[in-house]
């Protein structure tokens, strides 16, 4: 549900970057969304359509780079893929998993005219 606010913020960031660089229109925005960021990419896409109207981003392309979750087990050191619902290490069954990757939620590129 908080995708709406985050998408508005994404648009603010892209507009600011565009203005700072003397651009009048944004063509594309690239964002990274990690599997463990607690954000539904489809919701961001939907909100983007609505929220970009009347901004420098109107009609622009949203590119979402989905980052899979990766973790490491504190007990056996094995690395594994993680989603929000992973609670145990697939190797040893241990419950202590360190999150190495997948919490990303950031704007990485703005393409302007």
């Amino acid at each position, binding site marked *: 549900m908080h995708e709406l606010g985050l998408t508005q913020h994404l648009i603010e960031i892209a507009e600011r970057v565009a203005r700072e660089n003397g651009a009048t229109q944004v063509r*594309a925005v690239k964002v990274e969304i990690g599997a463990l960021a607690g954000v539904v990419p*489809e919701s961001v896409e939907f909100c983007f359509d609505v929220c970009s109207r009347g901004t420098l981003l109107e009609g622009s392309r949203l590119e979402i780079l989905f980052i899979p979750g990766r973790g490491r087990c504190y007990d056996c050191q094995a690395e594994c893929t993680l989603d929000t619902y992973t609670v145990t290490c697939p190797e040893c069954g241990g419950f202590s998993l360190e999150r190495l990757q997948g919490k990303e939620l950031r*704007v990485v590129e703005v393409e302007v005219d």
Partner: protein
Amino acid sequence: MCTDCGCGPSGHHHHHSPAEQSPGRALRVEEDLLAKNNRFAAANRRLFREKGLLVYNLVSSPGSGKTTLLERTLTELQSELHFAVLEGDQQTSNDAERIAATGVPAVQINTGSGCHLDAHMIGHGMENFAELPLDIVMIENVGNLVCPAAFDLGEDAKIALLSVTEGEDKPLKYPDMFRAADILILTKVDLLPYLRFDIEQCKAFARQVNPRLRIFELSCQNGAGLPCWYDWLRQEIAAKRSLVRDDGR
């Protein structure tokens, strides 16, 4: 799924009209979407530290008993500790009024369509308590087991509440929240005789998701477990005070 937008997890993709063919300028950025909230949270944390405040962020689904636990706790501890409460709800000031009735200062923050409190709202909320000598600030977040997990408010800890009527598998269904919390309070244990709720199973699920969790079980109806919770609060405030003293040296 996003109820604000009404879109479902259908995996649909929106096609945005591709801009003209000539290459645009690609500007590299590296800006975290939560960075703005995190900056406000850091400012709150500085303020809390300066004032030596202990701050808890209470999160749960609607109706788990957050306001009731606050009413009970404030009524019984306000003679020894100075509290203030920030109440978050989408609408109404009902909860702030319930708290104010105990005699503890309370401010309502209405988030409107927002599904969580953010650090900026908390910063402004705290302005209302600027002149008060305080020990503990309790923040009651909007009833929601999803969104508040992602937003740091500058608090010492998130306290998740789960009532025994909600089902023991909630920690597995909403792992983000139970992972973000340091403390879990199982509420309404007076109702256990009427339910098929396996409290040990629930605790085991919660610890699977977050082995660090400290768990309390209590009832505001018959008072079971409350002394344990109060003692813990007293210990935490004592620890905070000795930390503040060390800071001052």
